[in-house]
């Protein structure tokens, strides 16, 4: 019930921005949506499955370049380009996940972090394709409301996907991997297949989102495509909201985006350092996330309700 209420509230807010907001509100919300999508995507592999993914910007950046190249050279519409970027994300995620997800916690984190920096270096270097450090420019999209709508739908899709994961055995099995991968494997859970699936589910929206973001900016260059600060911000958003929860990524992204906007407008020189300090503060003081506070004060129900409800309906529950 509450979940439907949240959906309705989101739809109303999203519509309000289009109907009543100015350009500034539209731009702010588009960038917020990009972070919401990234946070939800990261939450699937990082929150539910427990794999510390420090390479999400690889998918975002490659999606951005695929999208821009299609729009620039083949004159594709941004929507088609974003779908193709999602496809490219999938094509990269499956083999990469199959190799990298054999690595446990810290190995996985540093390998993907390094890979992202390599992609960045390659996009700097390969200027025949990517324009190198100068970047690639697109004709700007004057009316961004359709782009806004597409991102809003993507956010909604991610929210529903996460709701499904939270209430399905697929999600329970991901969390089993997070808690004890060896035991999960011994008990017949196909860990490799599940991990690659979770990794891909997080890669596809990130890549599509990269293309949409590039279309919004009408520009892409390596530091924008593979921005380390976006990586760390996304992860911190999920942590601040609540790892492995349905509403955590959205709550974290909104809180963080507002804070970011304030910092950016007041201290442009120190912006990155201040973002870092905010992240440190989140880790030290809010490691369990805002959602856990809300659950404890009974404002929202704890997650994974589906099995509890089925058990209650079976009539044999205590």
């Amino acid at each position: 019930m509450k979940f439907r209420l949240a959906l309705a509230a989101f739809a109303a807010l999203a519509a309000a921005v289009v109907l009543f907001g100015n350009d500034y509100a539209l731009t702010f919300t588009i960038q917020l949506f990009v972070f919401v999508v990234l946070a939800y995507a990261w939450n699937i592999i990082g929150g539910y499955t427990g794999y510390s993914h420090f390479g999400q910007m690889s998918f975002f950046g490659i999606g951005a370049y695929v999208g821009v190249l299609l729009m620039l050279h083949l004159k594709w519409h941004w929507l088609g380009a974003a779908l193709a970027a999602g496809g490219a994300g999938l094509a990269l995620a499956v083999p990469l996940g199959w190799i990298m997800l054999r690595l446990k916690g810290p190995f996985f984190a540093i390998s993907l972090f390094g890979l992202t920096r390599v992609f960045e270096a390659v996009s700097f270097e390969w200027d025949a394709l990517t324009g190198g450090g100068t970047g690639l420019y697109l004709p700007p999209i004057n009316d961004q409301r359709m782009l806004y709508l597409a991102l809003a739908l993507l956010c909604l899709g991610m929210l529903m996907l996460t709701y499904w994961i939270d209430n399905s055995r697929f999600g329970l099995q991901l969390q089993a991997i997070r808690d004890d991968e060896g035991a999960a494997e011994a008990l017949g859970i196909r860990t490799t297949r599940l991990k690659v699936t979770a990794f891909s589910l997080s890669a596809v929206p990130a890549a599509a989102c990269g293309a949409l973001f590039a279309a919004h900016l009408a520009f892409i260059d390596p530091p924008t495509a593979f921005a380390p600060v976006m990586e760390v911000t996304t992860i911190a958003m999920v942590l601040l909201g609540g790892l492995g929860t349905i509403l955590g990524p959205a709550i974290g992204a909104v809180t963080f985006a507002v804070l970011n906007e304030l910092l950016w407008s007041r201290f442009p020189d120190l912006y990155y350092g201040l973002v870092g300090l905010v992240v440190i503060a989140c880790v030290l003081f809010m490691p369990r996330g805002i959602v856990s506070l809300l659950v404890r004060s009974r404002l929202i129900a704890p997650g994974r309700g589906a099995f509890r409800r089925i058990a209650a309906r079976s009539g044999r529950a205590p």
Partner: protein
Amino acid sequence: MTQPLLHVEDAVKRFGGRTALDGAHCSVATGSITGMIGPNGSGKSTLFNCIAGAEALDSGAVYLRGARIDRLAPHAICERGVARTFQLTRLFRDMTVLENLVAVAHTFSDRQAVERAIHAMELLEIPELMHRPAGDLSYGQRKLVEIGRTLMLEPKLMLLDEPFAGINPRLQNRIVGYLQKLRGEGMTLFIIDHEMRIILDVCDSVWVLAEGRIVMNGPPQAVRSDPRVIEAYF
């Protein structure tokens, strides 16, 4: 002689310079409760890990109903009907007991999985733990939930790694009762433990392992009086 459900042949496993299994063999008859005893460090847990696929044998073979399973991934061995518990329990600690059970049931619908989980919890007389997080349970409760989790897989063969260690005698007796009930329903059980008293009480056939080799095998009364067993232990 009928084909055993599980048969291990010449199992050898080394860790660096240490030989944990030195040509151990054993077999488990269908429908039996088979036990394996041996002093600490005799290789019991290693043998279990090799049967379940968590460790690879250096040489030797494991057969399940005559088919080799020792090169399979753990989940594949599990799908062939072998489910295990862990010596130091390894529950999914951030999930409730119900979720621990439901998570591993992969052949049923959600509703069937939940019903099966409730059935398992009732059999083990722990339905009141259903919504408790596994991380909050006592050691004895965790042992019971581990058995419940293997029940979700409807195994043909249940491997129990020290189910009686570190729990009070009342709970030990309760577990003995559950295991006998499961055997009555047609399940085969293979138990390792160093609680010799219980193993000898509950098992049909007992293997004695020492220093990576089988010292003897026989019915409990034969093991009880065998001088080689006493030598292995003292």
